């Protein structure tokens, strides 16, 4: 697989898997407005995934389309960041438990803040289609970040229980953000061609953006070792947590049982 294709899959699969996770809230949101918000943000993310996977499929030139990529690849072929596949229930309770809204909000905060910076930088990619997708996605991601920041403040600066849940989610999720910024051969190759962005160069500004929101929310930045020396998950290399298989089983079952089915 070319580095260019791998890079597009990394971004496209991350949007797709997080979009699917947010869609799990549909009908189960803590209140009606938030149920609708999660469906809307999930839809935007799946829209991003569609554009990115369409572009990836065209680049691959093997006759696959975005649906083929989304529904007929196995977990080892997915290149999403591990952060995006973690279950909505958090890491302690395991799969199939009811969702933890603080965990969802904090993950959205950490990831959409990253996306805003990444899209901003990718607007000047030499891959003009990727630059167009970045410019379009940036506008939507800003609304996602705004929503997540708003709820982070409400939880952190809310009741003792909401504060405790938000802090616990933050502590659990922060190590998984290292993967977003850790350099690797794929990214290095794309940076050399002016297609990709060295995400490590975004780390300082991302950290200060998150810190500002956490301060407003009276939450404490966890002691995280960071991408240079800390734990680095490997979803972007196709090595996933035990959780991705469950996401894919649910997302892909209809397309696999009824190939070619249309609404």
């Amino acid at each position, binding site marked *: 697989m070319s580095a260019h294709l791998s890079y597009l899959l990394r971004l496209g699969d991350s949007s797709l898997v997080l979009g699917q996770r947010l869609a799990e809230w549909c009908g189960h949101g803590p209140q009606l407005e*938030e149920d609708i918000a999660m469906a*809307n943000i999930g*839809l935007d993310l799946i829209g991003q995934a569609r554009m990115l996977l369409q572009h990836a499929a065209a680049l691959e030139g093997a006759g696959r389309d975005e649906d083929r990529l989304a529904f007929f690849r196995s977990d080892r072929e997915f290149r999403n960041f591990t952060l995006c596949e973690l279950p909505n229930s958090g890491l302690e309770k395991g799969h199939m438990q009811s969702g933890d809204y603080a965990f969802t909000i904090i993950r959205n905060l950490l990831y959409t803040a990253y996306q805003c910076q990444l899209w901003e930088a990718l607007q000047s990619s030499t891959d003009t289609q990727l630059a167009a997708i970045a*410019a*379009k996605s940036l506008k939507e991601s800003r*609304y996602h970040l705004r*929503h997540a920041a708003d709820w982070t403040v409400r939880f952190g600066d809310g009741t003792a229980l909401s504060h405790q849940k938000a802090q616990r989610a933050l502590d659990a999720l922060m190590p998984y953000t290292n993967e977003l910024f850790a350099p690797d051969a794929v990214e290095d190759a794309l940076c050399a061609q002016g297609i990709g962005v060295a995400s490590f160069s975004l780390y300082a500004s991302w950290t200060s953006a998150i810190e500002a929101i956490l301060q407003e929310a009276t939450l404490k930045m966890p002691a995280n070792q960071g991408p240079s020396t800390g734990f680095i998950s490997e979803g972007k290399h196709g090595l996933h947590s035990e959780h991705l298989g469950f996401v894919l089983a649910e997302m892909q079952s209809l397309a696999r049982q009824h190939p070619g089915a249309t609404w």
Partner: protein
Amino acid sequence: MNLEQLNRDSPYLMGLLGGIADPEIPVVSIVDLGIVRAACDDEVVITPTYAGCPAMHAIESEIRATLDAHGYTHTTIRTTLTPAWTTDWMTESARAALKGYGIAPPPRVGKIGTVPIYSVYFPSCPQCGSRHTERLSEFGSTACKALYRCVACREPFDFFKSL
């Protein structure tokens, strides 16, 4: 859209497409919303509003049906992402139609700049005109709208977000 494209635009085709209403907001046309970027004999160029908007598929089918019904079977439909769609392309008449339909129209992005993290924009109530409104939710019935309530007349209403 550049000048060359503008000059190629067929007013007749634009008029035809101007008769196609947005599937979600039937009081405005897809031309008024800025979805149709160019229309000439060879091709019609459209751009998505939101990347995941499910109405885009319906819009494309409607354009195809309209073109076919008027003998433009050879005209192709192309989707472009650049420049990215903005609510600033919405015409004044579309803004007025939205308001009449009970949806507060979006302020110009040029005026408010990019989406700020904390500050909230308070549109005036499309029912009673009061500026005393409150945001209920950042996301509403469709991706492009937020849910607000008028504190004066107590009516909830949709606000078309700036993008």
